[in-house]
């Protein structure tokens, strides 16, 4: 019996097909943004659309359209508007339908910026 198998049993470490608990290796990875709708006005949304290098953002009237599939997680939108954008921490993003990755985020009507 291989030693690594015995060592794993002694330490109580089990190999699972998929991480049974949050994996620390993904904690520091860049992830797509999460938006705070209350802090997102048209002006802020337009500035985010202009700064996104991967065409993941677009504005449709009072809605910010975010394509998580196109997002390269550069973090530029977070740098541009730290009050309105934060890291989502989401990385399990695989989808069996492309539209499932396109999200519509309502903008705050009263927000000036």
């Amino acid at each position, binding site marked *: 019996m291989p030693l690594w198998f015995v060592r794993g049993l002694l330490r109580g470490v089990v190999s699972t097909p998929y991480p049974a608990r949050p994996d620390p290796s*993904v904690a520091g990875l860049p992830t*797509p943004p999460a938006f705070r*709708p209350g802090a997102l006005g048209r002006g802020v949304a337009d500035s985010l659309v202009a700064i996104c290098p991967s065409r993941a953002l677009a504005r449709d009237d009072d809605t910010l359209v975010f394509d*998580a*599939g196109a997002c390269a997680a550069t973090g530029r939108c977070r740098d541009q508007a730290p009050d309105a954008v934060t890291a989502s921490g989401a990385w399990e*993003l*695989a989808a*069996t*339908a*492309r539209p499932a990755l396109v999200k519509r985020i309502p903008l705050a009507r009263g927000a000036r910026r």
Partner: protein
Amino acid sequence: MTAGQTAQPPGAAPAAAEVAAELRQAVTRQFGRSLHIRTLDTGSCAACEQEIRMLAAPHYDLQRLGFFFTPAPRHADLLLVTGPMLRAFAPAARKTYAAMPAPKLVVATGACALGGVYQPDPFSHGSVEQVLPVDVWIPGCPPSPLALLQGLLVAVGRLSEQAAGLGFTAADSA
């Protein structure tokens, strides 16, 4: 069964949804425990390839799940495509897909393959789905090995996808 039929389009009729569910079950039966993967670079910067290579390393050990990389399209069940599908590479991509035996799956990997980064222009189609019928989309630039692993398990029906439930909104706490 051909690739592209397993994905359920939004607003699909209930009958179509049932067919899609049956096809997905068939994919799970066929590929759930043994899947051979052919990678295809259609103009990637090679960051995705580096992450894909990590899947075979001991930490992730893809082989323990019954997933294997194969150099031959004729031995492949799943085509893992990276890059924005350069027009010069499209004929080779079509030939690779045609050489694979059915049933087969196509997984678009990385922001370039999903239509981010590059627009359609005289040099590039801009996304993989312009040329190949994609079944699963894995976002990321590049997607981490765990994200790739999740995508592969979603492709064979061993994990349920979470993308539809994500809103990408945060509480207004700032």
